[in-house]
């Protein structure tokens, strides 16, 4: 019995921490779907948002105000990215656009650190970080809260995509650029919107990750975990990002605990990539990779 409880404990811990990977992957997927760009800067956006938030907080602003200010900064960033980078690159091959996002990543990293400094900032959002017994199973209260926040955000995005005109326009553009143009949807509006949403997602991820690890350069590395998540879930699928994140979170913890002892630990860091490679071999479009609709 204890064995089973322990297994469930590891599994649940993994799933909960996986929601964060889902969140970061979601930022990638949104931009990829709307513009076909793999945004290398997504991880840096997480760092940049967290740095800005902490910076404003340290100036004495209450947390809510800091969040609003940071969100505004991310929206301005979205405008700037569209106006100064991508507007000039319409019709360029995807590799070129990808390179541009690499440039953007280093620029943002430098900018964030120039403004807010390079030391580690402590971020305390008052989320309790104690163990919580659910019957016989111990879970982290922090992870539970974080998972709830992610779930709320995803549900909110779902509503946005289904019910608002801009949300539908984003899905429309993801489906068919040309059709969107033909009915007068200006692609640059959509790009700004999608980068803003990705900025918002980055902010939430930055807050969660930052209050766990402290706000420092290394939180941008969470983006690296998003890559296996997307390979597993599919680059174009929002449900895929979510399920992929859960799979990566759960499997890396289970692997660490159950297989780690045989290979000397450290499994957590590379197991997701191995899993991703397996998926690539079996199902290159990912589990949820956009189902190509074929009528019969």
């Amino acid at each position, binding site marked *: 019995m204890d064995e089973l409880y322990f297994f469930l404990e590891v599994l649940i811990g993994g799933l909960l921490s996986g929601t964060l990977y889902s969140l970061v992957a979601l930022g990638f997927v949104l931009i990829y779907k709307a513009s076909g760009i793999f945004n290398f800067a997504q991880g840096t956006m997480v760092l940049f948002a967290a740095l800005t938030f902490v910076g404003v907080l340290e100036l004495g602003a209450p947390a809510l105000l800091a969040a609003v200010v940071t969100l505004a900064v991310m929206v301005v960033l979205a405008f700037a990215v569209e106006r100064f980078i991508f507007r000039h690159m319409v019709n360029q091959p995807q590799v070129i656009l990808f390179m541009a996002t690499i440039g953007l990543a280093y620029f943002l990293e430098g900018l964030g650190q120039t403004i807010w400094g390079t030391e580690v900032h402590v971020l305390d959002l008052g989320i309790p970080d104690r163990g919580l017994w659910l019957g016989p199973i111990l879970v982290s209260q922090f992870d539970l809260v974080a998972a709830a926040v992610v779930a709320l955000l995803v549900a909110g995005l779902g509503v946005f995509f289904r019910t608002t005109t801009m949300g539908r326009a984003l899905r*429309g553009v993801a489906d068919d650029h040309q059709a969107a143009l033909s009915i007068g949807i200006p692609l640059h509006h959509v790009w700004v919107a999608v980068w803003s949403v990705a900025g918002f997602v980055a902010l939430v991820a930055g807050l969660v990750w930052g209050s766990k690890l402290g706000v420092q350069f290394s939180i941008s590395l969470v983006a690296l975990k998003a890559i296996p998540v997307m390979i597993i879930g599919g680059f174009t699928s929002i449900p895929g990002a979510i399920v992929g994140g859960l799979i990566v979170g759960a499997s890396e913890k289970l692997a660490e605990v159950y297989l780690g002892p045989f290979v000397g630990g450290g499994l957590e860091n590379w197991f997701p990539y191995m899993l991703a490679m397996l998926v690539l071999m079996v199902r290159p479009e990912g589990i949820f990779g956009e189902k190509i*609709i074929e009528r019969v």
Partner: protein
Amino acid sequence: MTDATTATGPDDASGPLLSANNIEVVYNRVILVLKGVSLSVPRGGITALLGANGAGKTTTLKAISHILKGERGEVTRGSIVYDGTETESLTPSDLVRKGLVQVMEGRHCFEHLTVEENLLLGAYTRSESRAERREQLDKTYAYFPRLRDRRHTQAGYISGGEQQMTAIGRALMARPRMILLDEPSMGLAPQLLAEIFGIVDRLNREEKVSFLLAEQNTHAALKHSDYGYILENGRVVMEGASEQLTENSDVKEFYLGLGESGRRGFRDAKHYRRRKRWLS
């Protein structure tokens, strides 16, 4: 800009609704596809743009709606005047706002959106109340009753005919004054084709929508239009009232498949016949 045409003003209701004047289009900066095309569509008219595969019909429509850019195409000469205004500096979105909407070849529905979501997106450029949008949606469903039945189905899963209806209905949601309709007949059974052309006629009569209709199906297009242009290899080789074109022996021979020598196009016509045509 060559061919300074009479850019009258939007208030001048006498000029054509749309005119293209000697336009040239180049793809990838080198491939010259349209070699000086001129045409016009009168207010309230249905004008057919005919021609074989690769003649340049789609390119002409895309030049007019300004969505060539996304395909590395560029209008390098000539001018396009819509409703009395030179359109060069306008974006595709501006044009839709002014009532010029394209229905692209191959339908281009948003496959993962439902039929109703497709239609609603057609009204993207409209700043109108919910009630007005609802009203326009009901009107669209009245023209295309089948779409009402399919409204919660993803557009990727409906039939080709229904997709064509969705694409036209989506354009209708923008409250257009002019629709650029590209090859609606593609892949449709004759009965469905008749139904769709019937709706085009009704939209023209009842909603006062003018049409520029690009078609390979010469027969159907001439039947449902007032005037036609025949495009060959990026040039207009013939134009005239649709009844006259239907009666014309060259058209009969090369485009209606009624001649004895098969459908080869005007290029292959005997020299004296070409001369005769140019002189007439």
